[in-house]
């Protein structure tokens, strides 16, 4: 019950009892209450007029960063004896230091500033308003209103710096890049020999091979290194990312997608992104910094969700990807997805699957549950069967134990071998 309403009720009750008992003394007891109410009413501020200026220290940050927020309020109207100011914090953000709420008295033409800092979580967050409650000094008659502000912060997913992912693309682009094109030409790795033709650089002549032939010179050919068209598919279906207690492993998929796209774009590859979950979020393939920003924006707003249409992977529109382009499928992979991945491979797409290991995450959440060990063993068997089923058709799967850093797992399983290992012909895995 509001305070003024409660006091009014008490005053009314005393009057009614006084009348019923025909006792003026009881009725007179209501006078202090009425006096209190009347004084509050007389001092209620009339039409508060405030000016608000609000700012964020940064408009684009990485997940986990601390960001400062300022709200400056100026009173351009009558004095406000009691004013409560609350900056409306978007859902998903938490206050790191300071407070979003402030209470005090604001004289005419006086200003007050609220400053606090937030810990950012991935997403696009809008601070759309500041809430005010102005009231009389007794707090009886309140006026609630809000003033709109336009502050938006883009919180990009956190990145892990990857060195290299050793892909075996079937098709390469025309631009120079980091992946071997299986064609002779300028490069680093030896590819083969071919007869010398006019115009070839003399320094590439292989004198040992040429010495065996009387009329013919041979030159060394190297494997060309070209950029690759890469499509990253992020599985954002709730059911494939579901963990115990309603939690989700999706944030790991987002981190993997962000780290891989950052690496591929830095290597001058053409990268596209598809987020497949509650809806289809397609970022058209492109190069460079602008594409990086587009992908980060898409990943920042990505949420795991459910849709009847996109419940199964078979509805994924593969025609959006260039024929025989390299696909990176980021998903925990459930058994029914294996068939779809096989079909995709049969259509000529080389595929690398990166799977955040749900079993490790789940085991941590369910620590102490009975029969947990048996359940983990069964889940591991299923995981191995899926990995083998994929390997059988030439799909490589990287299972990311989330207790390990992503770069360490990628380096160990699909990273480029050290130079000395390449020199002795070892893969180093």
């Amino acid at each position: 019950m509001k305070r003024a309403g409660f006091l009014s009720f008490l005053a009314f009750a005393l009057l009614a009892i006084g009348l019923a008992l025909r006792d003026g003394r009881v009725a007179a007891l209501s006078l202090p209450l009425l006096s209190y109410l009347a004084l509050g009413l007389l001092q209620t501020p009339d039409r508060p007029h405030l000016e608000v200026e609000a700012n964020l220290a940064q408009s684009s940050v990485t997940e986990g960063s601390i960001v400062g927020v300022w709200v400056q309020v100026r009173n351009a109207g009558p004095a406000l004896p009691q004013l409560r100011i609350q900056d409306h914090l978007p859902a998903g953000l938490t206050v790191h230091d300071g407070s979003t709420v402030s209470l005090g008295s604001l004289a005419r033409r006086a200003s007050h500033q609220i400053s606090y800092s937030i810990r950012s979580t991935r997403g696009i967050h809008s601070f759309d308003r500041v809430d005010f409650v102005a009231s009389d000094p007794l707090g009886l008659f309140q006026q609630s209103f809000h003033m709109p502000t336009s502050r938006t912060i883009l919180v990009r997913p956190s990145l892990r710096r990857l060195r290299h992912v050793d892909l075996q693309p079937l098709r390469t682009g025309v631009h120079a890049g980091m992946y071997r094109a299986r064609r002779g030409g300028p490069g680093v790795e030896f590819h083969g020999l071919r007869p010398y033709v006019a115009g070839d650089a003399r320094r590439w002549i292989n004198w040992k091979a040429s010495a065996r032939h009387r009329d013919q010179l041979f030159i060394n050919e190297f494997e060309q290194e070209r950029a690759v068209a890469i499509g990253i598919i992020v599985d954002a279906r709730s059911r494939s990312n579901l963990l115990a207690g309603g939690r989700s492993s999706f944030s790991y998929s987002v981190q993997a997608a962000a780290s891989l796209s950052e690496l591929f774009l830095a290597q001058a590859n053409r990268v596209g992104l598809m987020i497949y979950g509650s809806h289809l979020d397609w970022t058209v393939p492109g190069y460079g910094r602008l594409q990086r920003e587009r992908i980060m924006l898409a990943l920042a707003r990505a949420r795991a969700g459910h849709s009847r249409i996109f419940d199964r992977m078979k509805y994924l529109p593969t025609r959006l990807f260039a024929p025989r382009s390299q696909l990176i499928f980021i998903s925990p992979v459930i058994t029914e997805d294996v068939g779809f991945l096989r079909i995709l491979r049969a259509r000529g797409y080389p595929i690398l699957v990166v799977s955040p290991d749900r079993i490790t995450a789940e085991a941590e959440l369910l620590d102490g549950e009975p029969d947990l060990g048996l359940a983990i063993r069964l889940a591991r068997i299923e995981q191995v069967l899926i990995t083998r089923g994929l390997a059988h058709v030439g799909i490589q799967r990287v299972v990311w134990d989330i207790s390990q850093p992503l770069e360490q797992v990628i380096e160990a399983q699909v990273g480029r071998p050290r130079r000395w290992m390449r020199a002795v012909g070892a893969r180093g895995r």
Partner: protein
Amino acid sequence: MNQPARIALLLSTMALTVGLILEGLWLLLFVVAAIGSFGWISARRGWESIWLFLQLALAALSGIPFLLALLASVLGLATWDLAAHGRLLQSVDNGFELEALKTSHYRSVALALASGSLLAVIAIGIPLRLSFVAAVLLTLLAVAGIAGLAGRASSASS
């Protein structure tokens, strides 16, 4: 519960107790003790409205001398106000111009209670010869005024 509210609560309970002793209503002292203890707990937990209701009901209906009943109800109202105001201040970490806020609040409370007490004493001290019908009409007028206040309160808060 802040210090002024605690003092006001003790004084209002004492006023009721003295009134009951003067009237010889010894049995009601247990009720007063219970209400006083409840007030101590309630003001901290945000139930001070219930306590004020009980305090006023006891002051009005126990039949103790008017001045003591008036004192008990005024102090009860002060307790109710100070407890709520103290809790409001405690709920906010980041205050500004708090001294001005407190000063204007305490000044308003003191003014309201003093003027209300004075009016009540004058109303009882000056005998008015009113017929029952006139009393009913005056009461209805007062009720309409109270309803107007409550209506304004609800519209302002929305």
